Every structure is written in C-alpha cells, then in structure tokens.
C-alpha cells in the first residue's frame, strides 16, 4: 500500500513538517516498509512480525538495536505516536485521502492555517484587528484555560481576515478563533 506522509509534532520545531513517501507491504511473517524523505533516497526495512508485537494495546517494536514501547492512535489521516517520552504527529494520505485534503484546503494553501483553540477555555483578550498583517510568532489573543492565561501566536506571516470571537466567549477545543489569509 502506498502512502504520502507528513511528519510533524516536534515541539522544538513548531509548525514544521517533513514530507515522506511510504510503501507498506505485509507478508505472512514480516512487514516490508520503504521510506523516502523528499529529495532523499528510498530506505527499505524488513521487520519480522515477531519484532512488531501488540502487547496490551501498545506496540513493542524491536528495531535497529532498540526496544520501543509505542502508543499509536488515530484514524483517517491523523496519527499520533508516542514513545520514550517523545511524541510526533503523522499525517498519512493514500490516494483517496490526498484528494479529500486538497479539496478541504482549497485556496488556503500557503496562507497558513487559521487559529484554532487547542483546548476548551475562555477568551480573555484579542490583541489584533481585522486586516492586521502579523509576523510569525506575534501574539494574537489571550485565552484562559486551567487557571492560566495563555498567549496564542501566529505560526506564519499572515493577514487577519476575520475575528470570530470576542473577550469572555467560551470556546470549545477545535473551534476556529481567527481566520487568516496569505499576505500578498
């Protein structure tokens, strides 16, 4: 089965992803996996099914001299993988998913993503106005969650297209707070 993937979630490189092509082939006794980072060579692995076990819903992968206890979850195109206190998010597309993604993104490609609440909370203050051009990292609004005020910042240079919340609004996790558009 052929996939395209985006590896992200490295907390020290917020917003950055690395594109990969992946091929997965299952045989009776092993997994054959080929990976290619964009612009790089194909790297091929054969992992015996004995080295890829699911124990109590957790994957134990014995690989390259290491034994990894891995918690992987997700469905559709979004997967989250935890191991050794590290976490990555992996977007995995096959043909069908690729098409769906491009439709969803539409003209927003290159415009940076909109500001979305990562957790439920309350809006304390909005620091920008409609039409403002923001630098990457510039504070957009302050949201209160878990007793603390959190500043939410723009992840790229964008223009504020619309502001969908006002101070004192309660917001849900995943709710879009501010719409951005690309700066021409």
């Amino acid at each position, binding site marked *: 089965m052929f996939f395209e993937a985006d590896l992200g979630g490295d907390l020290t490189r917020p917003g950055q992803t690395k594109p990969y092509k*992946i091929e997965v082939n299952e045989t009776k006794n092993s997994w054959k996996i080929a990976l290619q980072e964009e612009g790089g060579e194909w790297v091929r692995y054969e992992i015996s099914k004995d080295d890829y076990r699911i124990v109590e819903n957790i994957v134990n992968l014995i690989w390259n001299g*290491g034994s990894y*206890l891995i*918690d992987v979850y997700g469905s559709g195109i979004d997967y989250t993988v935890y*191991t050794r*206190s*590290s976490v990555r998010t992996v977007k995995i597309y096959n043909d069908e998913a690729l098409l769906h993604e491009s439709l969803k993104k539409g003209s927003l490609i290159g415009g940076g993503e909109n500001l979305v609440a*990562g957790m439920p909370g309350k809006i304390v203050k909005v620091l920008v106005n409609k039409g403002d051009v923001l630098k990457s990292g510039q504070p957009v609004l302050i949201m209160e*969650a878990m*007793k603390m005020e959190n500043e939410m910042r723009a992840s790229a240079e964008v223009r504020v297209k619309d502001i969908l919340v006002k101070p004192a609004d309660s917001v849900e996790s995943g709710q879009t707070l501010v719409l951005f558009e690309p700066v021409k």
Partner: protein
Amino acid sequence: MTSNPPFKKVLIANRGEIALRVIRACRELGIASAAVYSDADRNSLHVLLADEAYNIGPAPSKESYLNIDNILKAIKQCGADAVHPGYGFLSENAEFAEALKKAGVTFIGPTPDNIRAMGDKISAIRLMRDAGVPTVPGSGGPVDTIEDAKKVVEKIGLPVMIKATAGGGGKGMRIVREMSELESSYRAARSEGLNYFKNDTVYIERFIQNPKHIEVQVFGDQHGNAVHLFERECSIQRRNQKIIEESPSPSVPHEVRHRLGDVSIKAVKALRYQGAGTFEFIFDNITKEFFFMEMNTRLQVEHPVTEMVTGIDLVQEQIFVAAGRPLSFKQEDVVQRGHAIEARICAEDPLTYQPSPGLIRRCRHPQGPFIRLDSYAYPGYEVPIFYDPMVAKLIAWGPNRETAIRRLDRALTEFTLTGIKTNILMHKSILQSPKFLDGSYTTQFCDKDLEIKMPKLFRSVDDHVFLITAAIAAYNEKRAKSVSDYNTLSRWQSVGRSTTLRDQ
C-alpha cells in the same frame, strides 16, 4: 491500625493527588475519609478511592472547592469531625477555619489567627523582622528624596532595587549597580510609577543577584513545642511556579542550615504557630545570606522530599497536632538522611508551558527502588480544564544527591503518559543540565539556562520509528475497513462476488 484514632472521619476539602495523600494518611490511622468533588471530578481518583464521596457543586472552583457553604453542608451530611484542606483552595482561608470552629469541627491546620497574621505579606514581614528573622535590607518605607535614597544605599550597600510601591510586571523597577546610576534610576522609577500606576512612591531594597528559593518546614503544637524539619530548595521554577524541589539544598552550608532552623523555630514560637507551615526565604548564593519572604500556613506540594529525608509522615503529624496531641518527636530526633528530589509532572507543553488538559490514553507508572509516586493519573481519565495541570509528583531518594538524581532520571524514563502533553522530557533535560548538576542554579534557571539539551532529547528517537509505526497503523486501518465493507455487502452482492471469483 492504631488503637486510638484521633478522629472518626476526616473530610478532605480538596482534589487531585493531595486528596489521595490525605486519604492514605487517614486510612493508615484507622480514620474514615470523605472526599468531596465537583461535577467535573466525578471520575477523579480521590472520589474512587475515598471511603465516602459528596458532590459539592459545579466545575468552577468558586462554585465547589472554594464554596464554604457547600462544603459545610457536606460535613454535616457525613458527620466528619475534622477537615483537611490540602494545599491551595481553602487551605489558607481564615474565614473557612473560623466557620469550621463555629460548627464544632476541627480544622487540620493552623489557627485562624495564625493564617491572618501571615496572610498579609507586608505585615508578615514586619512581624518576622520584630521576631528577629532576617528580612531583605531596605528602606522599610517610602523614600521621598534623592538625598534619602543615597543614605539608604550607603547603609545597605549596592546593588539595590528601586521599586514603585504600586508597581508590577517589571514596570517601575530599576536595578542600581553603581552609585553614579542612582539619581537617574531613582527619577525613572518614580516617573514610571506615576505614568503607569498614578503613584510615584518608591522604596529601596537590596537586589539579590543569584537568588535561590530556600524554605524551611516547621511544625508547632498546642503545647508550645516548635521544631523544624530542615530546608528544601525549590529554585527550579517556570511561570513562577516550582517544578523541581530537593532536600537538602546543594547550596546551603552546614552552619547556615542550622541558623535557618534556629531562626525558624524562634518564629514559630513568636507566632504561637500550630500545625505544619513553611517559611520561604530568598537566599543569596554569593553571600549565603537568607531573608524572609513569606510563610505558607499549610502543607506544601513538595512536602514529600522532607518526608523522604526525615522519615516523618507530615500529614499524620498534622492530624495528631490538630487533635491536640503534643508533637510526636523532638528536634534532636529530626535527622536529614540522604537526599530526596521531586519532579512535578504536569499536563502541559514542555516548551511553551501551555496547559494540555484532555484524555489520558496510556499511563504506566514508574516503579522500583527508592521511588515514590503521588499521582492521580490513570488510563481513560480526562484531566479537566478547570484546575491545576499537575497530575503527579515523582520523588526519588538516594544516599547522596547524585544517586537521587540518577534514580529520578531513571524513573522519568519509565513514566509513560500519553494522550496529553507532559513535561516529563523537560524534567529529563533539567536533570542533565550542568548548572543543575553542580547545584549553582538559581530561580532564573528555566528562563536563562535551560534550552541547551532540549532539542537533542526531543529528537532522541529516530524519525523512522514514528513513521513505520504510523504507516503500519494506517495500513491496518485501511485493511480492516475494506474487510468490513466486504462484510456489509448485501447477500446478493456477496454471492455475485464469490461466483465471479470462482469463475476466474
């Protein structure tokens, strides 16, 4: 089980790991425990593990854990004869302590007068100074002229900090390192005070250049006995909140340690303080001087490190003292044995410190020699958004600091908590930082000295491990889906399909 429990039933006016801590203390003493919980905490571990549990209102703290009327109702309902407030919430609320007294229920904590005396920070400093406790040298009041400012600086020495009385958030504050800067800084602080806070009153204090947070655990009883249980160092802080604590402090010399203890005992006696309390000092790591900052009139989050080095159960001692018994030990019985260190595990982004509440998917707790874990996390538990993000405290003991640090590091490696972000990796990187290891760290550590090891730790696992695992998961999901699609085909379609297959 003791033959003579000091109380029949203790209601715990708190949640999270500290509620569990109190439940455990009660159970060991043969005391029944009653938990209280908000609507958001029905599934919280303290509710599941207590002997009894009572709902005290909606999720926001104000309407539940801070709602004195609702808690009084729960007390009446369950017939508790004592209340343990834990830390935070109502633990330093004199009105609550007073209300319990009126209801004939014992508050496991200091007297309302004790709480009030230390509650106001400015009057607490005055009180302590009068009791002979060192406080930060300074003007002790407004400095109205530049001539007065010069006199103060001549007396207390440089560097100094000029602060606007109404100031905050770094505004209206000036550090003066040389006498020649005094006049301009004095003027600047006053004008900033006027511009930002409409008040140009300023005062002057010694500026501590390498500040450490050192605190002393104390205990007093109703019979006038007072003891200290040595110091803890809590200089590793982020957002002005402690995240790593240890005892003893690697920076406090032996003779200073004893002075800290003596001064603290004097203060406990002057206050006629009853129960567990903590004197917080700012410690100058160059001059090794210490100055009183404030007193916490309650149990601290980091009390386990003291328990580990002294072998004294602080929560049980609180219960005994509240019941009117004399302290169960004398000063000479208190020995600092070995070294203990605690890491606060929080549901938060380890780099931005933003809270990360949500569903805990997997939770594997560390085990093994000389490890203590006070945690309320379990798989399937949803960390609510309403309260503190701390979900666990991991404590390690060793005969010396190096061993304790290595054990804590090892236990952090074993700790698996997924579904939410945690600061486990941040703790690991702190434990590898040279300034932490040599003990020279100050309260500015997280802002100034951390970054170095972080990126390396966050990339210690090969990217291919994540990709392989995610790809196999995606493959399995696709396969499972196509199989189920096949299963849901109508009978006619399946027959048609198998016929076609047979023909091939």
